[in-house]
């Protein structure tokens, strides 16, 4: 069954057809949500809510466009709203000590992973969205532009600035 067929079936009253869409994208949705929320339970909850919102708004889905892009827009907006809420607002302090005593290598990678999670919180939301979708999820600029409903050139600018901001943090810590 294709996504388009599942949507068509859903709109003609067959609610079970929605299962195809949920099962096709649930894993990616939870992972994307986790990258924003840094909490697996929250990520699961946000993904579930995104699927319900998408279902309720299914009639406004334009035939011919990709369900995944439309759905991820709903999911990313929902995660962004949660990130903006007071619970996620408190910023995690960055480490002040030098990274792995100046020695690059496998230990440094583990440390960077932790550092990047903290540093991501310091990025403005659009830069964070672009960095997560492009660099951490490997999506292409064109798709990210569609998900975030912005120009491809704006995506490139946000990505560049996000990378620079993160690299500056690292350079300062070495």
């Amino acid at each position: 069954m294709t996504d388009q067929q599942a949507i068509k079936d859903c709109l003609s009253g067959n609610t079970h057809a929605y299962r195809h869409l949920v099962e096709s994208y649930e894993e990616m949705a939870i992972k994307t949500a986790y990258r924003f929320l840094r909490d697996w339970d929250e990520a699961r909850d946000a993904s579930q809510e995104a699927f319900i919102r998408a279902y309720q708004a299914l009639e406004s889905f334009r035939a011919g466009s990709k369900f995944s892009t439309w759905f991820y827009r709903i999911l990313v907006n929902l995660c962004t709203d949660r990130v903006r809420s007071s619970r996620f607002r408190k910023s995690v302090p960055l480490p002040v000590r030098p990274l792995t005593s100046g020695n690059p290598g496998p230990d440094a990678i583990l440390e960077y992973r932790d550092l990047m999670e903290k540093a991501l919180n310091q990025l403005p939301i659009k830069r964070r969205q672009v960095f997560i979708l492009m660099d951490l999820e490997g999506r292409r600029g064109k798709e990210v532009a569609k998900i975030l409903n912005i120009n491809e050139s704006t995506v490139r600018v946000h990505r560049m600035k996000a990378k620079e901001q993160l690299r500056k943090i690292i350079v300062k810590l070495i």
Partner: protein
Amino acid sequence: MNCRQFKRWMEKDPSAWYVDVRQALEEHQRTCESCRILWDHMQDFEDTIKECRNLSIPESVNADLWPDVFAQMTKSPVKRKWIFKPRFRLVLAWSFSTVAAVLVLWMLIGNPSIKQDMGPELDLIVDGATINGRDAQVMTFQFDEPKLSVIWME
């Protein structure tokens, strides 16, 4: 390239390095120990980003969302969308009311053939009747069809 310039370029994303800049950076890090450490760290950082793409959901998290989603779906069905946007709905409603009003007026006063036809065929029948033990006048205005009856209770 000196160490200060090297550090500045290190802060920029590698995609922003021109070919000659990249060559100068590589050359500098080969000859300068402290800049080489920074270079290696930034390479590790780029590797970390790539590595972060491999994310797996822990087993403790139930990734099967369908049962919960389905339970919510039955509570809140698809929101039906109007075919027309609100402003078009208003225009549409106005158009229909205007057409209906014009049609009624035309039928009542504008079309003499209807008036002429109505005259001779109108019949008024007045009858006396007893309804629930009370006297009543029943007036029936009869066109061909339909019939209009007025019951007058005394």
